[in-house]
């Protein structure tokens, strides 16, 4: 047995060597380019900024003047962010709320819509287009739509249910205890449509005999879905989990359009931008927040990568 393995490994190695020898110059150039360019791009666009951000997060720098003007301050930025920077913890919480809302409302809603559309009901294409519109609209436009509906002075809700002409308004954007919920509704609306289209594609690709078999065995619709369809769509489900987490962590545009992510709409991404971009230019401070966001992102990424590698032997 052991000898077998050794022989096969030797043969394998020899085969590989032979193959390597057969590579023409053209192949080699092609391989170098195909490996080299992505490596260079990843290095320049991902690793260099990431590592510089981590480095800068331990410094105080206003971005003006050469690199010699950077002052090393150790962990001061992190300490200050956690202790004396009022928007940080709300932003942290809001990102978690965002994740919760997308995971428990947006994604299931999208899956539900996809499941219904998959039943070939009349006008399903029409519904599909309607549900898919939020993905096609730029997030900036969603921000503007929110303004039209939610603004206390000119918004639809305030005009219908209050009396802005006489100073009585319903304030869904300025009241920090409510604005996040209003924005989460918008975010879920958009996210659900995104999920719907991906899930619908998965459902369409599903072998119909699976469902027929379940029906013949007398399983109810719900039971068929949870026992047959859901497990069969595992690859799509994983994609949905990843998308949901990514969307929650990179949430930015809607709140930025509404009020630059202040006053109840703080998000980590907005705090990073607010500190680094603009006249403020607290490069070190903003980098430290970015590192916090990176650390949070690493948790789902590591779990995902771990899972994907675990599955390799199975397939």
């Amino acid at each position: 047995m052991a000898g077998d393995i050794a022989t096969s490994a030797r043969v394998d190695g020899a085969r590989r060597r032979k193959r390597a020898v057969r590579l023409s110059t053209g192949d080699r150039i092609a391989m170098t380019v195909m490996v080299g360019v992505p490596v260079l791009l990843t290095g320049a666009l991902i690793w260099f900024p990431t590592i510089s951000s981590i480095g800068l997060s331990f410094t105080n720098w206003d971005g003006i003047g050469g690199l010699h003007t950077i002052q090393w301050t150790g962990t001061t930025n992190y300490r200050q962010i956690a202790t004396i920077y009022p928007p940080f913890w709300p932003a942290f919480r809001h990102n978690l709320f965002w994740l919760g809302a997308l995971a428990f409302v947006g994604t299931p809603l999208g899956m539900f819509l996809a499941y219904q559309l998959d039943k070939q009901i009349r006008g399903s294409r029409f519904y599909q287009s309607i549900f898919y519109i939020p993905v096609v609209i730029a997030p900036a436009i969603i921000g503007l739509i929110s303004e039209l509906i939610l603004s206390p002075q000119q918004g639809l809700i305030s005009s219908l249910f209050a009396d802005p002409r006489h100073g009585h308004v319903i304030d869904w954007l300025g009241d920090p205890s409510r604005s996040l919920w209003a924005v989460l509704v918008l975010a879920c609306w958009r996210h659900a449509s995104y999920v719907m289209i991906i899930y619908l594609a998965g459902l369409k690709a599903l072998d119909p005999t699976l469902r027929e078999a379940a029906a013949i065995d007398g399983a109810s619709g719900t039971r068929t879905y949870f026992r047959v369809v859901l497990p069969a769509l595992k690859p799509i489900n994983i994609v949905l989990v990843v998308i949901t987490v990514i969307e929650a962590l990179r949430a930015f545009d809607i709140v930025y359009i509404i009020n630059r992510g202040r006053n109840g709409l703080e998000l980590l991404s907005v705090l990073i931008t607010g500190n680094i971009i603009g006249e403020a230019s607290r490069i070190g401070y903003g980098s430290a927040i970015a590192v916090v966001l990176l650390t949070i992102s690493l948790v789902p990424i590591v779990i995902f990568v771990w899972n994907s590698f675990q599955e390799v032997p199975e397939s």
Partner: protein
Amino acid sequence: MSEAGPTSAEPHGTGRAMTRGKLLATGATGALAAYGLTASGAAARGMLSRAVLADTVTLASYEENAGIPALAADTKLFTKATGIDVKTHTFAHGPFQEQINSYLQGHPDDVFTWFAGYRMQFFAAKGLATPIDDVWKILTPQMPPAFKAASTGLDGHQYFVPNKNYPWAVYYRKSLWKEKGYTAPRTWAQFVALAKKMQNDGLTPIAFTDKDGWPPMGWFDIINMRINGYDYHVRLMAGKQSWDSPQVKAVFNKWRELFPYYSEGTLGLTWQDGAAQLENKQAGMFLLGGFLTGAMKPANAKDVDFFPFPVVNPRWGQDSIDAPIDGYMISKSPKNLAGAKKLVGFLGTAPAIDAYLKINSGNLGSNRRTNTAKYSPLQKKEAKLIAATKHIAQYMDRDTRPDFASTVMIPSLQSFISDQGSNIPKLVQSIEKQKKAIFGT
């Protein structure tokens, strides 16, 4: 930040541009005489012929709406008088401000539009601007001393040429006040009494908006200057006084008295919403910069009047206001330094400012020789207010570090409003801690 630049558009202004151009060309010669650029003056400096001067200066502008043709009229005059071409690059106002750091460190234009006060001093101290003391040798007698001070860097050199400004005051609609029989208050007690009366009349007494983040800074500024005086205000803004102090607490405590009279839903309203409340006679008063009339219909704008913020501490009376100054600076190493200096010098002269204000009205000229005959009655009153006020502040986001203003003060003032001033000691403590971290003191 105060990106709420003046937005007034003069729709009927452009038709007469040609004749105006001719008229102004003659005025421009006068301006250049004052600036020492007439033929004889140039000859005395070594026969600078027109051919030598026929080069280009680049100008970065964040002007919007009527400001764009107004500045174009100025540069046209300048080219006509000097033979120097001006290449203007117009940027969107907000993004220009946000990218100013990298812009000035990259390949900036020779001349750029900017703000006076701390915001100018910050970049001057970083070596990103060119001192223009020689330009001010000519401008000094033409400019009010407060404007020169606002154009001077921390090192005592001038870096800035003022073009226009506007005051912050309490604006109201004359017809509404006449109808209801209101009179302008002079003291805080009268101010509160008036607000109460308006409330009883079914009005929102004071329009107050803060979705933009910057408008409440004007309230803090003026109440602080009224209670603690201008010098204290300037030191506080420069990070030299503690925010966790009885003086600052007094400001917030006084300010809190007005919450019952403010617009509902303050934090969801933009300044334009506030202007609309005033315009629709839904609100009785509105503390804002003079640019607010630009957001109104011209007929309604004519119905607008103002009073300076009432006296709180008789020791200071009404001796200070916010009146932010806009103008021009020269970048660190301009390609055409001589031309750039000539251009900024020219833009500060009365004829240039007159030409500018003819198209972009709703602002006040910085130069003392500005032709005020063309001002509207409101502008005349505003000019009088600024001239009569001893101390001119530039507005919080121009008087203090930009990072402090945007990352600390905007959220802090918003939380002061959202919790209705219920936790002032904690608020000022938090501001002070963050201030220390930013100013490093």
